């Protein structure tokens, strides 16, 4: 079931981050971003749906996308820690988005020739979406990092807060030895080049991480994920099988 577990990890990354950005809907600092963030959330949730559907079929136990998304508890979620971090301020949200997209864009590039037709199909579409997320979030990282004294301080705080979660992106997790999926470790040079390019323009320094945070792929999460899942799953748990 290694491929099932590996696809589930990918799906969880996308659903959790998609839900996180959707929390901004109606609360963004300006109308333009209030539309842009749900756009990004819908890209991620759309990818998550295809991946959950695929995972359910790989598993062959009759679990569909809704069962996988709405009935698993915190310890069963296999997303990396970066995506579950709380939104914080706009700097944290944009930096988190930039870090994730800078990883996923080259990842999907590498997955485009996957022997698994569903993965290859998702990759072809998602690579364009991630390219735009890099651009959108990256431009904000630059604007805030190289902006006013206050915006620069907030962006530096965001880097200090989030950078420790980026190492986990490159752990192979359940995909270890899976031919159908790219090696995560092999994405590191592309990720570092993208981040270094934006950091140079943003006057930000790449921090040295002493204690990298990890554990998400084994279901060991921060406190934030449980609260998020409780809110995301409450309706499906209160009314199992409800349709509209």
């Amino acid at each position, binding site marked *: 079931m290694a491929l099932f577990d590996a696809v589930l990890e990918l799906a969880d990354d996308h659903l959790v981050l998609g839900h996180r950005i959707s929390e901004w809907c109606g609360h963004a*600092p*300006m*109308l*333009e*971003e209030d*539309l*842009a963030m749900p*756009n990004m959330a819908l890209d991620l949730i759309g990818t998550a749906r295809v991946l959950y559907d695929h995972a359910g079929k790989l598993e062959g136990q009759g679990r569909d996308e809704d069962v996988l998304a709405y009935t698993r508890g915190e310890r069963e979620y296999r997303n990396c820690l970066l995506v579950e971090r709380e939104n914080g301020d706009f700097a944290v949200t944009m930096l988190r988005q930039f870090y994730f997209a800078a990883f996923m864009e080259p990842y999907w590039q590498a997955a485009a020739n996957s022997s698994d037709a569903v993965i290859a199909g998702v990759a072809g579409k998602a690579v364009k979406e991630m390219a*735009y997320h890099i*651009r*959108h979030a990256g*431009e904000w990282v630059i*604007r805030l990092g190289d902006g006013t004294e206050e915006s620069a301080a907030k962006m530096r705080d965001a880097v200090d807060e989030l950078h420790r979660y980026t190492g986990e992106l490159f752990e192979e997790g359940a995909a270890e030895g899976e031919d159908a999926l790219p090696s995560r470790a092999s994405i590191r040079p592309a990720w570092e080049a993208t981040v270094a390019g934006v950091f140079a323009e943003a006057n930000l320094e790449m921090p040295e991480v002493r204690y990298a945070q990890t554990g998400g792929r084994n279901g060991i999460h921060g406190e934030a994920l449980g609260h998020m899942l409780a809110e995301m799953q409450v309706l499906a748990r209160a009314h199992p099988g409800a349709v509209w």
Partner: protein
Amino acid sequence: MANETPLWEVFIRPRNGLSHKHVGSLHAADEVLALNAARDVYTRRSEGTSIWVVRSSQIVASDPDQAEENFEPTGDKIYRHPTFYDIPEEVGHM
């Protein structure tokens, strides 16, 4: 923030061969963010193949007080409209 953020006019070309059409306006700090915002706000339903943004302050507009002298003189010159001959069907969209 809105007080300091410039206003931009957005023009979208729906298909190749058609011209850019004004679709609305938005706020953005500079031209790069304006293009991004235009993409996010005005092309969510596959409306476009190309985007232009122009700072609203750069638009030179005609004076509404001169509307009569500008536009009314053309009202009675119906011979300027191509309505006195039939367009063959094969010509299609004109």
